[in-house]
């Protein structure tokens, strides 16, 4: 359940932003998760909603955007989407590091993200 530690880290960062002057009300957090990042979006959503409770951002929503994987091959120069392993037993086809063109070992260039992309907020008026 590393989603919980990632959610805690996320909430901490967003709270830090929300609490810095001027006072802000956070509406939405947009998070980018790479296809190769071993983070389950649904679990992360659940952990987020649990961690934000009774904090200044408890009414905020979390939006998760998946970033597709890309690989580059040092052997043949290919660059682009990875080769997928269709009959692996995962829920979806599995991205591999086998070069789609020459079959040798490629390297990942995109898809390891776990990044806060934007925070949407309103500035709060003093009452």
């Amino acid at each position, binding site marked *: 359940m*590393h989603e919980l530690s990632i959610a805690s880290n996320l909430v901490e960062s967003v709270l830090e932003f929300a609490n810095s002057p001027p006072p802000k009300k956070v509406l939405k957090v947009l998070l980018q998760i790479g296809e190769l990042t071993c983070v389950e979006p649904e679990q992360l959503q659940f952990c987020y909603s649990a961690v934000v409770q009774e904090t200044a951002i408890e009414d905020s929503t979390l939006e998760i955007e998946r970033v597709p994987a890309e690989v580059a091959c040092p052997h043949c120069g290919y660059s682009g989407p990875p080769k997928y392993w269709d009959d692996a037993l995962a829920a979806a086809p*599995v991205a591999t590091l086998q070069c789609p063109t020459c079959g*040798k*070992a490629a390297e990942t260039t995109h898809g390891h993200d776990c990044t806060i*992309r934007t925070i949407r*907020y*309103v500035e709060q008026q003093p009452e």
Partner: protein
Amino acid sequence: MIQIEASPEEIYDIELEHSLLEANAKIAQDNREKLDRHGITAIDFMGAIGSGKTTLITRLVEKLKDRTGVAVFNGDATTSSDGDPIAAMGVPIVQIATINGCHLDANVVAKACAKIDLDKISLIFIENIGNLICPAEFPLGSKARVVVVSVTEGPYMVRKHPHMFLGAQLVVINKIELAETMEVSVEKLIDDVHKLKPDLRVIPTSCKTGAGLDDVAMAILAV
């Protein structure tokens, strides 16, 4: 539920590009630099509970302790029983009890490094928590990551846990003496690994017969 009432011009978007895994990655990098300065190679062993990580590390320590200064960091959610045979060989061992349970992070490895005399060590074996998913996202500062799978985990270990293998530098397929009984094909497991990562080295081992252990030891010394 509090409703936010704001006209569109009062809504702001701030672009951040703040990586949530960066804090750990940064400490991992610091660990790596510190170990490099002391001429130490750290090897991180990952694998499921019961895959044989502890026994494999114990055999490797037996083989290597007279050639080079070895230490072991043993990550374990609850017990400290795993480390005892290693401590009996006079090898420094640091037990790391994890609070979150599912993986080691770079910070606990930094703390473990502070507990041993780095000048007397040139090789550290880090036994990660028995888990094939979480540790993949948390580099520790090791020079190589080894995934240990055993034939007793069935024929589909590789295709069920692809992430772990993509980030590994060596795969050990353990308990091969049981392959026939388990009706698991070692060749097929190797083939699965190479479907994911064609240049990843795979060494079949048996801690019972000793098969493959010298190859693993040599591969580690060559890291």
